[in-house]
C-alpha cells in the first residue's frame, strides 16, 4: 500500500426497519426477516402506496443519552443512536481530549434532512392557520443537524458537516471520511447518514414519480415493480490503523477502497458507464483484483432499470469473476433507506465478512432473465468473505462504491 495511512472500522451502529442496533439487525438479515409493513406513523389516506420500512423499536427516551437530541427531528435521533452505538463499540473514550478532538471528523449526511418537521410546520401554517411555527423548526429541519448533534454529543471539533447525494449520501460520507483520514487531515471520524422522510406528503411526491411498488421490494426478480421507501441510520467509526492498534481498539475490518463518479447523463436513468467506473475505481484504490471480491452488497432497488443496469455494470467490471461472486440486495429486507441506505449496507457488508455469511435477496423465486448472476436468492448462506463491496447509485447518476478487506494482520 506504498506506506499510505490505513483506515480501519472500529465501530458500527444502525437504526433499521429490521430493528435498532447492529446485533438485532444482523440477526434479522441472517434469518431473512422483512421489515416492510403497512405504514403506521403517518396517515395513508388517499395514498395507493401504503407500505414502508418504518423503525419498529425506537423510543427516543430509551435509546438516546443526550437530552438535546430529544428535541431534534427523527433523522437526527436515528443518527444520534447509531453514532452512540458505533462509538461505544470502538471503546474510544469520549469526549475526546482537546488535541484529539480537532483531529476528528463527523460527516453525517441525509438525503433530505428534517422533511417531516417541515411538513408538520407547513400543516400548522397553511392548514391550521397558526401564526408561527415551533421555535426549533429550523434547527430540526436543516440537513446539517444530525452531524452537529453528534459532534456535540462526542466532543468532535474537527471537520463536521452533512453531505448530500440522495441515495449515495452515506457512502459518500464514509468515503470522504476515509480519504480525510488517509490523507492525514484527521485521525478518526464518525461517518454515515440518517433518513426519516416517511410522511404523507413525501409519499405523495414519490407516488407521482411512479417508481414505488405497492406490494414489496423484490430485487432482480421478474415480478419486481418498484422500490419501497424506508428510514433509518447507518454509521461507521473509522480510525487510522496505527493509532487504533496502539490503543487496543477492536478492529472489525479495513476500509481499503473508495470510488465515486457521476453519470452526467440523466436524473433517473442510470448509466452502465458511471456505475462500472465507480466500482473499478474502488477496486483500483483497494489494489485488489475483481476475483478477490467475495461479496457485493448491491444497490438493488428493485426498479426495472437499476437492477438490469447494475447487473451489466458488475459484469463489465468483474468479467468471468462475476459468476463466482455472491451478490445480494439486503434492501429486500430493510427497504430503501435512501440517504442512510449505504451506511446500513456498509454495516451489512462488514458483518458478512466478520461472520462469513452472505445475507439473502428475498422474493427471488423467478429471476429476471437479464439478471443472471448469483444474488443469493431467498436464503442466506455461509461463505468465506474476505473482501466485500458495497454499491450506492443515486438519482441524478451519483455513484459511490466502498470496498472492505480483512483487519490488518
Amino acid at each position: 500500500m506504498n506506506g499510505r495511512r490505513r483506515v480501519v472500522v472500529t465501530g458500527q451502529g444502525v437504526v433499521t426497519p429490521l430493528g435498532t442496533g447492529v446485533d438485532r439487525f444482523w440477526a434479522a438479515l441472517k434469518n431473512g426477516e422483512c421489515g416492510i409493513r403497512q405504514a403506521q406513523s403517518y396517515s395513508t389516506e388517499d395514498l395507493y402506496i401504503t407500505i414502508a420500512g418504518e423503525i419498529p423499536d425506537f423510543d427516543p427516551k430509551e435509546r438516546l443519552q443526550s437530552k438535546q437530541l430529544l428535541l431534534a427531528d427523527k433523522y437526527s435521533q436515528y443518527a444520534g443512536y447509531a453514532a452512540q452505538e458505533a462509538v461505544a463499540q470502538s471503546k474510544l473514550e469520549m469526549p475526546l481530549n482537546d488535541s484529539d478532538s480537532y483531529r476528528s471528523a463527523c460527516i453525517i449526511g441525509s438525503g433530505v434532512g428534517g422533511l417531516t418537521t417541515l411538513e408538520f410546520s407547513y400543516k400548522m401554517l397553511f392548514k391550521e392557520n397558526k401564526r408561527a411555527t415551533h421555535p426549533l423548526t429550523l434547527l430540526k429541519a436543516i440537513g446539517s443537524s444530525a452531524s452537529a448533534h453528534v459532534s456535540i454529543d462526542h466532543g468532535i471539533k474537527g471537520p463536521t458537516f452533512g453531505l448530500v447525494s440522495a441515495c449515495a449520501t452515506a457512502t459518500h460520507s464514509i468515503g470522504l471520511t476515509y480519504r480525510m483520514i488517509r490523507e492525514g487531515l484527521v485521525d478518526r471520524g464518525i461517518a454515515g447518514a440518517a433518513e426519516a422522510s416517511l410522511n404523507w406528503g413525501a409519499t405523495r411526491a414519490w407516488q407521482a414519480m411512479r417508481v414505488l411498488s405497492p406490494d414489496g421490494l423484490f430485487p432482480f426478480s421478474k415480478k419486481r415493480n418498484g422500490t419501497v421507501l424506508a428510514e433509518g441510520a447507518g454509521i461507521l467509526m473509522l480510525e487510522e490503523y496505527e493509532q487504533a492498534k496502539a490503543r487496543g481498539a477492536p478492529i472489525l475490518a479495513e476500509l481499503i477502497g473508495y470510488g465515486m463518479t457521476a453519470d452526467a447523463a440523466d436524473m433517473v436513468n442510470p448509466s452502465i458507464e458511471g456505475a462500472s467506473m465507480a466500482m473499478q475505481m474502488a477496486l483500483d484504490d483497494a489494489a485488489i483484483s475483481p476475483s478477490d471480491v467475495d461479496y457485493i452488497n448491491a444497490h438493488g432497488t428493485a426498479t426495472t432499470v437499476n437492477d438490469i443496469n447494475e447487473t451489466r455494470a458488475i459484469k463489465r467490471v468483474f468479467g468471468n469473476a462475476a459468476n463466482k461472486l455472491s451478490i445480494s440486495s439486503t434492501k429486500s429486507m430493510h427497504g430503501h433507506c435512501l440517504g442512510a441506505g449505504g451506511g446500513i449496507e456498509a454495516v451489512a457488508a462488514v458483518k458478512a465478512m466478520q461472520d462469513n455469511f452472505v445475507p439473502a435477496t428475498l422474493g427471488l423465486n423467478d429471476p429476471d432473465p437479464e439478471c443472471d448472476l448469483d444474488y443469493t436468492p431467498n436464503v442466506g448462506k455461509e461463505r468465506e468473505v474476505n473482501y466485500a463491496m458495497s454499491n450506492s447509485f443515486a438519482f441524478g447518476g451519483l455513484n459511490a462504491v466502498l470496498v472492505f478487506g480483512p483487519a490488518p494482520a
Partner: protein
Amino acid sequence: MDDVATKIIEILRKNMKDPSKTVLLETPLSELEIESLDLAVIVFDIEDTFGIEIPYNANEEVEAFATVGSVVDRVKGIVAETKASGAAA
C-alpha cells in the same frame, strides 16, 4: 377529435421536444420522444386536468400507454368510473 383527446394532445405537446410534430390518435408514444420522467409529468398533468387518479407504474410495461389513442381511452374510462362512484356516494 373530442374534448378529452384535444386536452391530452395539448398536454403531450407541452412535454415534447418538438411540439410541431403531428400527433394522431394512432401515434405511438415512443415516436414522440417522451422519456420515463416526462411520462410521470404527463400523467400528473392529466390527473390534475381531469381530476382523476391513474394507476401507472414506471416499472411495468403498461399497454394503456402504447399510443395516444390508448391513453385517451384509458382516461375516458377512469373519468367514467370516477363519475359513477361519485354518483353512488
